[in-house]
């Protein structure tokens, strides 16, 4: 079976600094995969490479067996890749409804339609409403994003990524800024996704990681440092030394 997402010898340099160092990684379909590692290890950089925000210096990226390293971001999204950002990337004064209409409309290829009024996209509107409701944003659907409390914005960030109905979903610290007690809830929404959706999670909260992931890769200084099941990684003394510390 081909991996849902694969990288081969991926390298990214910023000037003389190697942020991604020969990373070869394979994530099977339907996996709940976590990516952890010290600050500055290159996790976000790796996600940026996968999504095409950055171009690699060398190496390949394969999505469902298809090489996508040279495709622009939007084309990768079209092939089923989606992500959230470490720092919210939302549309300022758009309402959550606008944002969802956009995301769903784009997925269905309506984005080029210049002659059909938005309000006539009933199917899209219904789906948007349903998704907003699932993310507890229904009450706020007509409010400008910037006026929403941070937690709601965070939810919208994730909802947008999910609206694209991705095959592979990349989450960059989705629970950042969300209170301890609500973190699990955020991830439970992710967990509800169909089993064949592959999820890659970056997170520094080990409670979350250990409860969510079935497999973990550890990055350090740009390179793959260790990989294994939750049990293996959480006991690995080297990982403890560089990342987890003693009490994890």
């Amino acid at each position, binding site marked *: 079976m081909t991996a849902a997402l694969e990288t081969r010898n991926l390298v990214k340099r910023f000037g003389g600094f190697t942020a991604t160092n020969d990373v070869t990684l394979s994530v099977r379909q339907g996996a709940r995969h976590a990516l952890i590692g010290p600050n*500055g290890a290159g996790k976000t950089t790796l996600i940026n490479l996968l999504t095409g925000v950055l171009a690699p210096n060398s190496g390949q990226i394969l999505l469902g067996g298809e090489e996508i390293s040279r495709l622009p971001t939007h084309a990768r999204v079209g092939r089923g890749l989606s992500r959230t950002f470490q720092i919210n990337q939302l549309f300022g004064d758009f309402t959550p409804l606008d944002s969802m209409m956009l995301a769903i409309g784009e997925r269905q290829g309506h984005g080029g339609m210049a002659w059909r009024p938005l309000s006539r996209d009933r199917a899209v509107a219904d789906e948007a409403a349903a998704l907003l409701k699932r993310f507890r944003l229904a009450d706020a659907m007509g409010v400008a994003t910037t006026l929403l409390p941070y937690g709601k914005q965070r939810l919208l960030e994730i909802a947008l990524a999910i609206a694209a109905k991705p095959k592979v979903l990349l989450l960059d610290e989705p629970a950042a800024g969300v209170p301890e007690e609500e973190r699990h809830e955020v991830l439970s929404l992710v967990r509800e996704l169909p089993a064949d959706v592959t999820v890659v999670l970056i997170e520094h909260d080990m409670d979350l990681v250990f409860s969510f992931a079935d497999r973990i890769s550890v990055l350090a200084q740009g390179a793959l440092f260790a990989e294994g099941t939750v049990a293996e990684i959480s006991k690995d003394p080297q990982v403890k030394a560089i990342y987890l510390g003693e009490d994890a």
Partner: protein
Amino acid sequence: MAVLLRIQGLVAGYGEARVLAKVDLVLEQGKSLALLGRNGAGKTTLLDTIVGVTTHHAGAIQIDGKDVTRLRAEQRTPLGIGWVPQERNVFRSLTVEENLTATARPGSWTLERVYQMFPRLKERRRNLGNQLSGGEQQMLAVARALMLNPKLLLLDEPLEGLAPIIVDELLAALRRIVTDEGMSAIIVEQKARKVLPLTDDVIVLERGAVTYRDTSAALLAAPETLDAYLSV
């Protein structure tokens, strides 16, 4: 012990909007305070108001016995405030080192000392602020505040995005700073269980008002109360 920060009947917010409703607070020198509360409770607003970057509506703030209510933010800093904003707000077009030196004030915290605390920053010291990873930015924001050599450190979710091992180190370091150097600190944090063991006192904010205050030890000892205040 001397009172470092005294807040009375503080009402503040953004523009017309009032977020804080009559907050009272006293913090003694060399003590640390955990500030807890849900999303949107007003924690950040309270810190920002102490710093002086929100709209002040009523009430008074005293630092070190001096009334600063009418002072602008840049006039308060010299009295000894060090601030780690929630969104880090690293200066993007300054290098790491410039970020540290641009606002630095003389004192025991020097470049060498913060680099010692965060070796990672030393490695990246020629990088621009916006070329840092999330965690590195967080370290920089904390280091920048320390370089101000403040009497009162205001930390808004300083652990966010840091690797577990760094979190532990930072908390230990903060503890040392407070006990050994007599610096005071207010720490806003989502991970209450992480910070409570290290702080002296705790207050909980709810809709802009203080709804609970006690020693940290007391709150830790009563997990039900903690859950009641913090869960949804």
